[in-house]
């Protein structure tokens, strides 16, 4: 247990040497390696964090792009829907117009067909009526009917307008012609006299008319005065009846 000063001093020196040696050849290299590794780890962590932030940014960009794409897709879909609706409406309108035109044409065709059929029926009815009336009048016609028609002629003659009477007289004055009277039956004398007087008074002629008979008249009278023709007979009335058929 004695304290050796030699040992004491040498131990102090020895330990100081040990501290110096370990400081330079042990602690410093080891701590340097640890520091470098920590820096590398920190750098790796920093890089990883930067990469993570970058990835997060990319993710946000991607999500933004996806959202934009979705919005664009929705807009395109809406535009397409509107376009389809517009096209559908336009085509429907065109189709409706074509349908209306077709319907109008069909209606016109039907109306035309009905009009033609109506005209044909009316013409047939008139024709049949004319034939029937012709047959009846041919069987029922006689001197009495003719006398009444001549009376009717005379009444109408007396009721002619003044301008017509004036025209007849001017023609007769400028170009004198004989008055031709055609009847279906021979005119009785008394009635012939009345006719002669009336016709000469109306036309201003100085010659008595020529009387002829034509059974085609069925009954009645036909007077020809130059370019003028006055008639009151069954044949002309039936002709007028048939003419009315064509007029219809």
């Amino acid at each position, binding site marked *: *247990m*004695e*304290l*050796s*000063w*030699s*040992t*004491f*001093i*040498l*131990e*102090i020196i*020895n*330990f*100081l*040497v*040990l*501290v110096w*040696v*370990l*400081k330079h*050849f*042990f*602690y410093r*290299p*080891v*701590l340097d*390696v*640890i520091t*470098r*590794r920590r820096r*590398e780890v920190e750098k790796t962590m920093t890089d990883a964090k930067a990469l993570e932030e970058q990835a997060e940014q990319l993710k946000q960009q991607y999500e933004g792009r996806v959202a934009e794409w979705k919005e664009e897709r929705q807009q395109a879909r809406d535009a397409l829907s509107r376009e389809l609706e517009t096209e559908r409406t336009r085509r429907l309108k065109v189709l409706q117009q074509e349908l209306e035109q077709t319907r109008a044409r069909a209606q016109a065709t039907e109306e035309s067909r009905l009009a033609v059929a109506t005209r044909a029926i009316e013409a047939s009815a008139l024709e049949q009526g004319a034939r029937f009336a012709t047959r009846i009048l041919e069987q029922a016609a006689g001197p009495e009917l003719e006398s009444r028609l001549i009376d009717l002629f005379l009444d109408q003659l007396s009721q002619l307008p003044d301008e017509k009477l004036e025209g007849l007289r001017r023609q007769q004055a400028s170009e004198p012609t004989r008055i031709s009277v055609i009847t279906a039956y021979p005119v009785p004398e008394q009635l012939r006299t009345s006719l002669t007087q009336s016709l000469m008074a109306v036309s201003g002629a100085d010659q008595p008319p020529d009387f002829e008979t034509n059974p085609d008249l069925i009954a009645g009278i036909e007077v020809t005065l130059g370019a003028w023709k006055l008639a009151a007979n069954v044949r002309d009335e039936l002709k007028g009846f048939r003419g009315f058929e064509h007029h219809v």
Partner: protein
Amino acid sequence: MADNSLAIAPVFSLGPLDITSTVVTSWVITAALALFGWLVSRRLQPDPGPLQTAIEGIVLAIEDAVTEVAPQYVSQLLPFVGSLWIFLVIANLVGLVPGFNSPTRDLSATAALASLVFLSTHWFGIRIRGFRGYLRHYLTPSPILLPFNLISEITRTVALAVRLFGNMMSLEMAALLILMVAGFLAPVPILMLHIIEALVQAYIFGMLALIYVAGGIQSQH
């Protein structure tokens, strides 16, 4: 060096200096640590192997211990405190190797280490806080405590030296007595206790040294 007695006899003399087995063993330990440190420092890799991992673990453990006590002065204190721990662990355990004696069973060696701790406390305190600032801490919290602070400086240094010396010397003495009384294999449990005691005493000495030095630096912080 293979002397089994507790006496520390000089092995040889170097002029006026007597070279004892304690000094020779300390030289051997220092040389071995220097060689080991040099070899290890040449083979340090960014991707560490098992040995480098263990070494880095030891250094980081020392660094963490210093950081917990004096986080602002790790780079200044780590070489001294770490060397104390490493040297004392090996010096305490080297007595288990046949033919070697623990340097810490010699009061001269433990006194030298305790004296270094005493001087280091003042060295680091004056270096970091300045001479006046360091001396002022003896007057805190009251100038009346100055004598007690001065006595404390001496007594704790003596206690540091005697504690380590007494524990290590008593362990070897107990093992020697049991060997002499009971036979060849009887001291084995005592030797196992020696390992634990060696580690504990190294830790206590180094930690107390760290606390003393850190106390000298941070007494007013």
